[in-house]
């Protein structure tokens, strides 16, 4: 394990920025913290427990152009737009977000592979950051995530005086070597410190309101009963069908592909996030398979809690980051849904 003193962090950032495009939690004008490009003036805020938006944009941006085609008179010409191949380093990734990438991999990297996602994934290096101040909305433990050990190329921990640095993957080690003297070795006692801090975090987690929350593992087995459960009507009735939950969710990954007519025969084809909450979601020639709010609402949670695990070795499409608990305009969230199903006689 290495360490670097807090006052030297700016040096670290500059060094990392030389290795590629560096993204890390920065505080914006309104005091909100989000992943942003590192600049000397940026207000880096590693201490923030959770960024407002997840880091999924790094691999799966909300909008990305796929190709252009243009018509000259009666001729048509095509041009594919490829994602940039620059190295990206994301620092300060929390364990929940780190796990979400593994979940997205199951979607985008299985055949047919999404070359855009794949390219970004390969060009990106993740530096995780152990949690020290989990919030009451946190429930990553419900998915066996260790808040202290993000599944990233490098794991880091922040103490009052230093940042501790542990390369985990080859990529991570390579990076650490490049940083050379910036990182000094951490001795036994210091490693202890980090472990103690981890223990404290665990204690806090156990005090939080959702510490004993878990998803009923019988859900997939009872698929049909769950699908037909009465709880959906009650739950969905207060849903606004806005897309907030799906857009801030680190594991939601639906997208739409659209054409934009730029005039004079020019057209751009791009893909953008879609949301199962949207009225025209999966609208097809014959119409829309899910016409009502209830159906769309149910789809989202059935997908996360039933369909996805069914097709992915029991892995739920949720990492317990708690963003939906914080952001839903009407305080609906996956916890509420899971609990409702728990008590309903359908499971």
């Amino acid at each position, binding site marked *: 394990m290495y360490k670097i003193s807090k006052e030297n962090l700016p040096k670290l950032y500059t060094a990392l920025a030389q290795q590629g495009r560096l993204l890390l939690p920065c505080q914006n004008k309104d005091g909100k913290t989000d992943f942003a490009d590192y600049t000397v003036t940026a207000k880096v805020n590693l201490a923030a427990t959770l960024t407002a938006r997840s880091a999924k944009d790094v691999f799966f941006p909300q909008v990305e152009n796929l190709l252009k085609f243009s*018509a000259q*008179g*009666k001729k048509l010409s095509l041009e594919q737009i490829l994602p940039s191949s620059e190295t990206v380093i994301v620092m300060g990734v929390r364990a929940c977000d780190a796990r979400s990438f593994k979940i997205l991999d199951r979607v985008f990297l299985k055949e047919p592979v999404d070359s855009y996602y794949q390219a970004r994934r390969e060009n990106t290096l993740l530096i995780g950051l152990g949690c020290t101040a989990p919030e009451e909305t946190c429930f990553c433990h419900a998915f066996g995530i260790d808040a202290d050990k993000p599944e990233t190329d490098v794991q880091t921990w922040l103490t009052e005086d230093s940042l501790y640095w542990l390369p985990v993957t080859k990529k991570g080690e390579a990076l650490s070597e490049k940083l050379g003297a910036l990182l000094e070795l951490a001795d036994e006692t210091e490693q202890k410190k980090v472990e103690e801090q981890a223990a404290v975090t665990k204690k806090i987690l156990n005090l939080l309101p959702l510490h004993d929350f878990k998803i009923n593992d019988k859900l997939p087995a009872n698929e049909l009963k769950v699908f037909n459960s009465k709880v959906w009507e009650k739950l969905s009735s207060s849903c606004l069908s806005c897309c907030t939950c799906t857009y801030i969710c680190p594991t939601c990954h639906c997208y739409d592909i659209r054409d934009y*007519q730029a*005039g004079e025969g020019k057209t751009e084809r791009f893909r953008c996030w879609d949301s199962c909450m949207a*009225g*025209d979601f999966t609208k097809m020639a014959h*119409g*829309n398979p899910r*016409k*009502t709010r209830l159906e769309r609402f149910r789809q989202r949670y059935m997908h996360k809690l039933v369909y996805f695990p069914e097709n992915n070795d029991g892995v739920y499409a949720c990492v317990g980051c708690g963003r939906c608990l914080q952001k839903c305009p009407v305080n609906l969230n996956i916890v509420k849904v899971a609990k409702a199903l728990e008590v309903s006689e359908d499971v």
Partner: protein
Amino acid sequence: MQKIGVFVCWCGSNIAGTVDVAAVAEAVRQIPDVAFATDYKYMCSEQGQAIIRQAVKDYQLDRIVVCSCSPRMHEATFRKCAESVGINPYMVEIANIREQCSWVLKDKAEATAKAIKLAKAAIAKVRFNTPLHAGKSNVVKRALVIGGGIAGIQTALDIAEAGYKVDIVEKEPTIGGRMAQLDKTFPTLDCSACILTPKMVDAAQHENITLYTYSEVEKVSGFVGNFDVTIRKKARSVKADMCSGCGLCTEKCPSRKTPSEFDMGLKNRGAIYIPFAQAIPKVPVIDRDACLKFKTGKCGICSMVCPCEAIDYTQQDELVTEKYGAIVLATGFELLPLDKFADLGWGVSKDVISSLQLERLTNAAGPTEGHLVCPSSGKEPKSVVIVSCVGSRDTTERGKTYCSKICCMYNAKHAMYIREKYPNVDVTVFYIDVRTPGKGFDEFQRRAVEEYGVHYVRGQVGKVVVDGDGKLTVFASDLNSGRHLMLFPDLVVLAAAVKPAPDARKLATMLTASIDNDDFYVEAHPKLRPVESPTAGVFLSGMCQGPKDIPETVSQAGAAAAKVIGLLAKEHLATNPCTAMCQENICSGCKTCAHVCPYGAITYAGKQIITLAGTREQRTVAVVNEALCQGCGACTVACPSTAMDLKGFTNKQILAEVDALC
């Protein structure tokens, strides 16, 4: 794929002189769905149109773009041409490359480039054109005239003469209106009654005219050619068919407390009364608020004296419903109530009267048999002051900003009445300006000054003070000499502003005929359609549209009649196909659109809707009456969900043009 044909016109050298027409044709030929493009010297000529017809056949064109002069010139021509080869006329678009291009530009390259752009825009639009069909609606061959004054009577007579049925609805017990109250008329000074009453009789006797007096319009629905109107015939309490009009009842009626409306309150009338001797119909009415029989149950004298047992205390209001093809508004005017003019002595002294009261005082059939006397004393005045512009051209809240137009002339007339009959009565007219345009008008006014020795003083009357024993003192200023004047007349006449009849607003809402801030009806176009209201099938006659004198009123009445006749002469009305349309699956029924529709063309109905999502629901949605809609498009923008669109100018069409031009 669509097959668009583009035809570029040279317009001789008008276009070809500045625009490389061949280049325009060549440029658009490159566009995938342009199946044919050519240019020709005169596209509008027979040969030109032949080229279009041929091309349509040879290339199975389904859409046509003509690059030529303004659509205001030849759009109709090319639409007809298209129709002649089986293409819907609304599949034609015009690119205006003359007025908007060759005529305003000099540089050929520049002009050609613009012409190509304009052509491309027209092509972009025409892609979204859809066949449109003018609807047909029938015409009920009967007209309704609301108001039985000179305007209404004249309009009715003219329509009736043309052979169409006309009904007149008059809210007073008799027709005749304001003109009947007048003594003489300018500029000829002939007796008002002598020229009006014959017309009243004609109207009453005309086989095509039906009179509904003492009646009001209750409800109007429908649209041009097909109005449904409900008329309330108020109970006269007298059986018109039995009454001989002898007037015995009116003489014997014991109730004498009600001021006569006709005599402007200068005299009282009975509870049962006939407004004036030449009233038509000459059938009395019982004013139930004044009648002792109705108030106390006692009395009943009228029915006792009536020789023909015509009195019927039990009579009820009657509702008549009738269909009409056209409606004429001739609701006339009244004088501005002067309550706010106490500073001019109004309401303070009986000897401060309005011009209409003066008309009654000088009228041989009036309360004083035409003797000019001061209402307070009954004595003849020695001097009279006439005040112009009382409430006219007045920007304060008590007055009207407009000029009442007729006052300058009738002031001169009144001055003459007086000087004619009572040469030693001194008459002074205070004025801001004397406005007497019109045939023989200025001469008339000058005669008042030069021959009748009326004093005209340019200046305003500051106030009229009434002292303890009722003497009047007029404080005024003479703007020409800059002197302050103090006069001691026995009679002061206030030339009060005219204003539309109070029920104008009510009718306007019934008919969706808009009115302006002063409640005058608005014309469809202030210059080009002065006797039509914006609502198709509704026409304007007389004072209700704006201040007018009798000659003007009569000529406008004739004009309105002509318009009505023109409408009634039609078997069918072709409705404008470029109307608003409601996409019901989007419409929320929020009723915003109806607010901005000047024609009341939008109503709402509950319907089974298949939503975009594919669900079925019962919803209230907007319904456009295509016969009423004139296609302005106000509703399309008012609609937040763009459910309202305009045929011929759809959002898609306009946006396509925008994209093509930018």
